[in-house]
């Protein structure tokens, strides 16, 4: 109930200023920054580990997961800093590539990853770009208090599948027609992932949901 009420406050509680970092090594980080600004919150593009110390939450954008694996393996400080911050409770939201980078298991791949979230993913699970799609999905946790939930217009671009997850993971949204790997949005403790891209469609609800996670985390600590 409280969570739902907080949604309406657009990412900011009076007196609590949030700084959201957006990992900007490669991908659609500018789109995320734009959305974060629209939510009335300060966003910062992050390329080096020195920029991470004072952020309250981190977004890992869409992009190519092998590229991000290479870029972080050649700069171990940024990799270690992000890993430590998330392990110690900093909220993180990964879209598409971000979900792959957070996963502890990537089917058939040894590529670098943070490996913090108990999900198993398959990269590029729907096929080549001609199978990329947009669709209306239900995300019950976004329901505003006392109102019917509007569907979310989700864009999937060479998206991964979440094949399985541990009981510690809350499934927040699924596609029903894809029996294997139908999960498209999930949360485990301070980690939120979606295999689609809310930063592309102008609907701020998922980012606000994430900002609520960041807010709660900041108020608790």
């Amino acid at each position, binding site marked *: 109930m409280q969570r739902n009420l907080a949604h309406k406050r657009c990412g900011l509680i009076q007196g609590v200023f949030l700084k959201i970092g957006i990992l900007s090594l490669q991908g659609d980080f500018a789109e995320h920054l734009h959305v974060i600004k629209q939510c009335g919150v300060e966003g910062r593009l992050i390329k080096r580990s020195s920029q991470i110390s004072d952020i309250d939450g981190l977004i890992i954008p869409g992009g190519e997961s092998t590229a991000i694996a290479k870029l972080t393996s050649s700069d171990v400080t940024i990799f270690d800093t992000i890993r430590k911050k998330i392990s110690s409770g900093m909220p993180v939201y990964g879209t598409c590539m971000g979900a792959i980078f957070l996963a502890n298991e990537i089917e058939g791949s040894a590529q670098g990853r943070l490996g913090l979230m108990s999900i198993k993913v398959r990269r590029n699970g729907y096929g080549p770009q001609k199978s990329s799609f947009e669709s209306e999905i239900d995300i019950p946790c976004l329901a505003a208090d006392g109102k019917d939930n509007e569907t979310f217009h989700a*864009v999937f671009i060479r998206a991964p599948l979440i094949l399985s997850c541990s009981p510690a993971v809350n499934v927040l949204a699924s596609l029903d027609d894809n029996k294997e790997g139908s999960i498209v949005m999930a949360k485990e403790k301070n980690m939120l992932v979606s295999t689609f891209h809310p930063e592309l469609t102008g609907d701020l609800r998922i980012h606000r949901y994430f900002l609520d996670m960041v807010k709660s985390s900041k108020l608790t600590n």
Partner: protein
Amino acid sequence: MAPTTATNKSNKKETGTLLVKKALPQMLKGGVIMDVVNAEQAKIAEEAGAVAVMALERVPADIRADGGVARMSDPELIMKIIQAVTIPVMAKARIGHFVEAQILESLGVDCVDESEVLTPADEEFHIDKSKFQIPFVCGARNLGEALRRIGEGAAMIRTKGEAGTGDVVEAVRHARAILGEIKKLTVLPAEERMTYAKNIGAPYELVKQIAETGKLPVVNFAAGGLATPADAALLMQLGVDGVFVGSGIFKSGNPLKRAQAIVKATTHFQDPEILAEVSRNLGEPMVGRTARSLSEAEMLAVRGV
């Protein structure tokens, strides 16, 4: 908190929409797309951190050296490259050759480059790219050309530069032209927009949109003659969203090392310390040829309308 699984009756999937086509290049931003001519090179590119590979039969430097008609690659070669890597695979079709594009789409390439590097199949008309399920990238030298291609359905623009030369001057010229014209357009009085659209041969609606938003409605990369990490960073600082590197990598002495360096330089394009570090000991760059030394018949950028 109890798990809340959504139970949708049916999620209708719409494929090949403009939004879906424009989104793929958005995911490639800040990255490097590398020309490869076989599966081994594609693997090296992926290993180096490329965001996509461009499959073609010969890199532009060889097309220049060999002469003759340059066409779409053998589908067998493209399939091998698709099977070799997990990153997106692009492939080139000749300007106006919509059948080559249909073949590439059916093979499962992720994006078609309607490219002046190949010998044009049509000197008057480009492909109607809106009919395809997959995105197209097209070259442009100026804003008018970029907007004509976007009008035809291109989901991504790149500068033409002068491919296969290792000379970055034309890519710089084209990037400055496109980005500079966009800036000027934002301060142009509204009543001058129609004449401006007419003069540059661009659709009015797109001119109006850019005047209001100050940016292209699609992703804009640099291409054509980039050969070093510093070249990539130069174009990024000028304001493009990412870079293509063609002959510059696999025509150099140490392709993997150079490819990795260009990937890092594209990410850290504003950081001279990192640029200095990655530029060290890269081995021989590709043998360059100045764009100015090309005869008119040798210039690729003038192809297309």
